[in-house]
């Protein structure tokens, strides 16, 4: 019985396969065409128009060089202790206009996370982007450090407008709350070491051990200056 059923299934399968072969061949051909079209589209994404025909212009080092330039620009704009924070931790913490009652964590290409520094309670995520629709090299994304600088400028210059433009979500929508809490712990540790370095009167290069006295002076002045993003 079982043998008969198995044989019948095999025969049926072979029959269906034989009958369906032309369709399968046609389907495989269409799939190949789609794959080659998709590949052509991907190649086009790495090209740009230069006054005429598109030419292949993919440069694997471009993003790295762009990020290096962006880091220099960020460094030249933010306070020295903020730069040290970004360099060492990969994000920036800035206080809101209302002083130290709440603060923001600025991550590159991630939502801005607001929290209460006194308790560590997370408040909201503000999803905001700075897309350059001209897509000069195929992408609308600014380098990481430029994205951070754009958020820093927008918060410093017009916090309410930026927050109004952003899409607000509860914590955890895009940024893992556990990660944020770990980052807050890292930040607290970093600040303690930073303060100790300041107290010792040597450089704030607490991570790599370099000395930078101007950084120390600037950071000390900054702490004295109440530390909000912009004087209200």
């Amino acid at each position, binding site marked *: 019985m079982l043998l008969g059923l198995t044989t019948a299934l095999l025969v049926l399968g072979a029959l269906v396969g034989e009958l369906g072969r032309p369709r399968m061949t046609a389907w495989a051909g269409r799939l190949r065409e789609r794959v080659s079209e998709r590949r052509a589209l991907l190649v086009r994404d790495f090209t740009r128009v230069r006054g005429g025909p598109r030419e292949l212009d993919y440069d694997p080092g*471009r*993003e790295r*060089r*762009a*990020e*290096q*330039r*962006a880091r*220099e*620009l960020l460094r*030249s*704009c*933010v*306070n020295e202790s903020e730069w040290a924070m970004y360099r060492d931790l990969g994000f920036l913490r800035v206080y809101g206009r209302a002083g130290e009652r709440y603060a923001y964590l600025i991550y590159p290409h991630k*939502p801005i996370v607001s929290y209460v520094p006194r308790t560590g309670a997370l408040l909201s995520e503000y*999803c*905001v*982007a*700075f*897309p*350059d*629709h*001209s*897509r*000069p*090299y*195929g*992408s*609308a*994304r*600014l*380098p990481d450090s*430029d994205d951070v*600088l*754009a958020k*820093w*400028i*927008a918060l*410093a*210059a*017009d916090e309410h*407008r*930026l927050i109004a*433009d*952003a*899409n607000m979500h509860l914590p955890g929508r*895009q940024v893992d709350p556990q990660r944020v809490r770990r980052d807050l712990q890292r930040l607290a540790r970093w600040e303690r070491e930073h303060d100790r370095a300041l107290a010792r009167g040597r450089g704030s290069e607490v991570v790599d051990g370099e000395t930078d006295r101007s950084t120390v002076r*600037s950071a000390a*002045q*900054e702490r*004295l*200056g109440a530390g909000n*993003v*912009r*004087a209200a």
Partner: protein
Amino acid sequence: MKLLRMKPGHGEIMLAEGDVEVAEEERALIAAFRRELDAGMWAAVPTETTGGRREAELVKSFAEVPRDAERVIFFPRAAGGSR
């Protein structure tokens, strides 16, 4: 004064540089400034308080740029991210 623009895949580029006290150079700076605003960019001037604290302010016209500003940075307008 330098007009800089953040650019994807490149970092900042210098759009124009000139002395605002020289009429011809000021005109070139104003023209470049307007082009960027017309293209939908935001313009910001990095500033420093007397206490040495660094800040920034957004400007909507060249007239709002302090005459002694060293740089104006253009960057794409903010848009709400993923919903």
